[in-house]
């Protein structure tokens, strides 16, 4: 990139943008609200003391500020986003339009139920799709995200154990080493102890080690399938049977459902509970880190303990059950105010209806095909961690970088200069310097071919000793590598007004 310096600090279309607080001018405002009439206050003497300290900006200034900020972000709409484990697929705009229909977006969660039959119908219809696609008899809709869904599933398991009188004795949850960090964190939040299961050479659960860990104190297993190495757990039926025989339950982390939707029903695999990330498999946008949604499908053994609220049908009429008194089941409690991520439900159903049952099967097939195409094309260029076909994502490790002085992180940063969002790096933890590539089904062959060629070129550079291409990367971004050490040692988490002496300068 040109090293030309500019008067403004901007560089062509890349603008330096201060904080809104630094752009503030007294008297500026981005809304026109009527003046209050001056009705006598009923605040009871609890008026706020002094100002809030918010900045003043007009509407065009706010618009420009946030447009400029947006231009510093990478996005799936602009480029390939092969972030393993995250399923960064195309987000259809029809879904956005549907979620904004006033009948969905402008409805209050505590309106009389008689005024929201369409909302209940939507929840019920989405539930039907989720149950059918997973082959499970029940679904809890309210969890707000994947990790929240995990918590829901484990709470249901704990409740089922309690009903059996074994809550105090079955306190250990088995979690493979390759699991997402949320799994052990969730188990701990639910009062369980966590016991790690090692992986085999071929990236799956070590069945013998797993069986050796089973015992009368095991509450269950949390297993991601396809797993975080992008592999289908071949022994999954044996694992399910073994944990059931030992009196435990099978929680399946459904983060990677995109690989099997329409081709495999988790219900056929012996699963007792599985969350579904609507923001992964069913294309609701990631939004820079949320909001997501994490409905949990449940087996007959766990269904009675599903949390409040839930939609039920009596005589063809839908009803929302919001409290224990009106429930004929045994709900374990409530995870959230109101009824879940309705806005995400609409988007997900819009996506499902668009694809239909035939299209969803094609989704899984194309996702798996794309990942295997990347794997096959790069396995001699980079080092594939495991033999054989992968599912929806391909795992590589840093062996091909050995002796080059280039590390996984440097390699990822060099991809940024090439216009790619890096793959997931250093996860899963079971291989060294992991690079997990998930192309998803919404990428064309041409995109993949270009990406493969770029990765090959980068690998060649690394092996040829061109360290500067990596060590200094990224060089072409709005910001280069940031000092994360100082950020963590002396956290600055908010803007504070400059001291008066400095302001006078």
């Amino acid at each position, binding site marked *: 990139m040109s090293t030309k310096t500019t008067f403004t600090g901007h560089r062509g279309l890349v603008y330096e943008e201060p*904080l*809104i*607080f630094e752009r503030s001018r007294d008297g500026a405002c981005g809304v026109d*609200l009527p003046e209050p009439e001056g009705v006598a206050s009923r605040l*009871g003497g609890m*008026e706020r003391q002094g100002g809030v300290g918010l900045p003043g900006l007009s509407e065009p200034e*706010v618009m420009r500020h946030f447009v400029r*900020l947006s231009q510093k972000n990478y996005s799936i*709409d602009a480029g390939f986003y092969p972030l393993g484990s995250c399923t960064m697929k195309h*987000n259809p705009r029809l879904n956005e339009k*549907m979620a*904004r229909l006033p009948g*969905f977006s402008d*409805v*209050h969660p505590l*309106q009389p139920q*008689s*005024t929201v039959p369409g*909302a209940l119908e939507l929840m019920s219809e989405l539930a039907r*799709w989720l149950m059918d696609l997973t082959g499970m008899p029940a679904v809890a809709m309210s969890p707000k995200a994947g990790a929240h869904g*995990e918590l829901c599933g484990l*709470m249901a398991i704990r409740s089922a154990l309690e009903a059996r009188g074994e809550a105090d004795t079955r306190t250990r949850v088995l979690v493979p080493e390759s699991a997402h960090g949320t799994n052990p*964190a969730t188990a*701990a*939040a639910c009062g369980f102890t966590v016991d790690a299961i090692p992986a085999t050479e071929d990236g799956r659960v070590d069945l013998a080690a797993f069986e050796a860990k089973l015992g009368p104190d095991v509450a269950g297993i949390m297993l991601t399938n396809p797993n975080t190495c992008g592999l289908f757990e*071949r022994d999954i039926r044996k694992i399910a049977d073994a944990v059931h025989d030992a009196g435990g339950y099978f929680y399946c982390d459904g983060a990677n459902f995109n690989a099997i939707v*329409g*081709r495999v029903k988790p219900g056929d695999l012996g699963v007792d509970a599985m969350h579904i990330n609507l923001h992964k498999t069913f294309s609701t946008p990631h939004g*820079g*880190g949320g*909001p*997501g949604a994490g409905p949990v499908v449940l087996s007959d053994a766990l269904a009675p303990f599903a949390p*409040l609220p839930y939609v039920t049908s009596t005589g063809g009429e839908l009803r929302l059950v919001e409290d224990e008194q009106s429930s004929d089941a045994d709900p374990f*409690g*409530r995870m*959230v*105010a*109101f009824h879940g*991520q309705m806005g995400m439900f609409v988007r997900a159903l*819009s996506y499902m209806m*668009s*694809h*239909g049952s*035939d*299209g969803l099967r094609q989704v899984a097939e*194309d996702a798996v*095909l794309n990942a*295997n*195409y990347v794997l*096959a094309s790069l396995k001699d260029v980079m080092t594939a961690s495991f033999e054989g*076909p992968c599912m929806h994502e391909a795992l590589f490790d840093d062996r091909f970088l050995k002796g080059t002085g280039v590390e996984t992180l440097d390699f*990822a940063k060099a991809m*940024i200069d090439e216009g790619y969002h890096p793959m997931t790096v250093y996860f899963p933890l079971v291989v060294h310097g992991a690079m997990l590539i998930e192309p998803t089904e919404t990428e064309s*062959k041409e995109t993949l071919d270009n990406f493969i060629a770029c990765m090959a070129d980068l690998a060649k550079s690394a092996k040829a000793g061109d360290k500067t291409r990596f060590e200094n990367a990224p060089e072409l971004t709005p*910001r*280069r590598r940031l*000092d994360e050490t100082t*950020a963590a040692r002396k956290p600055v*988490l*908010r803007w504070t007004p400059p001291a008066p002496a400095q302001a006078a300068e």
Partner: protein
Amino acid sequence: MRYLPLTPDDRQQMLGVIGAKSIDDLFVDVPEAARIDKAFDLPPHQGELEVERALSAMANKNTAAGSVPFFVGAGAYKHHVPATVDHLIQRSEFLTSYTPYQPEISQGTLQYLFEFQTQVALLTGMDVANASMYDGSTACGEAVQMAHRVTRRNKAVLSGNLHPHYRAVIETTSKFAGDAVVALDADVSGGEDIASQIDGETSCVVVQYPDFFGRVADLSAIAAAAHAEGALLIVAIPEIVSMGALKTPGDMGADIVVAEGQSIGNALNYGGPYVGLFATRQKYVRQMPGRLCGETQVVDGKRGYVLTLSTREQHIRREKATSNICTNSGLCCLAFTIHLALLGEQGFTRLAALNHESACKLAGALEKVSGVELLTPAFFNEFTIRTPKPAADVIEALADKGILGGVPASRLMPGNEAVNDLIVVAATEVNTDQDRAAYAAALTEVLS
């Protein structure tokens, strides 16, 4: 299928490169018994027009808040959101990006998170805030867990006038974590004695402000009582607009403030997605849950932003994390940031004043209806009335007349006879004089 770029030719070529005969070769690891060949009992793919038609039909069965005189609150509020907000949050770079784990190409998201954290700290009168949680209720649950970590105790004391759903979330979390909860009974008179429940084992006291019934009361004495026993004060704010008019929890000694941020920038959405606000004192920052964005520098001296203090989080700390939460409420938090930037100091305080005025006018009108009693003398934009008939019936009768008149307390506190005749009523800047007059007239008819 419009969302899938691969053509049949592409697929054949790619299978060739892989060395697979058919797609089934790639699914060999799936146990045979679990492979599905038959179609599902679900409809096939459809075009935009058909999907839009079907979903619109469902949406049209619901009564939209904007189509009627609307006074429902109790944790979610109908406000006007400027057009700019929805336009900006739908920009590709915000809508379709992931969590900002690669800061060099995520400065847009990171900078607004930093602005958001600052806004939340200012609103609540606290030192620091995180980059948002799922919603107010889960933020409240997380606050209790954090108080346990800070105090190394595990008994929470909950005000009876905490939103029943917030209470249920805390009780559910605590039940499984093995923590104790002491929850007082609801008391619309505002006479509850929470201080007497605090002892040397109490980790925190949780109070709502304004409370579930809309009452505004000073919390300084509760803060002092909690602190005297080494406990923390957690304040939950369901209506964040109130912070434009009311004394902040920070000023009254709160240690953790959680809030529902839906009112700023976000639609009602039948309950979600919303945005949880979470603020605390500087000294507790390493015990906070959720993502945090921090300011730092690039090698060349330029200012930039990164996610920081990640060692608290599940992806590093696993079972020792401060929370199992992996996401924030990114896009809702962006909507909040933009709307509040548009409002600014002048707009936000005026919005609060207009809300209070709307509620004062409505309370004045409803008080005059025969048999109706106003039970909350001091309030912000929400108050509670007692009606001579069961509240649930009154609300249904009002709905039949095209007025959504509030929430019967019995819906959220089933089985509590004492609240059967109470309606929690909210009024905001969207309500007109006509709306308020229509409510008073309809209520008069329903009660006569």
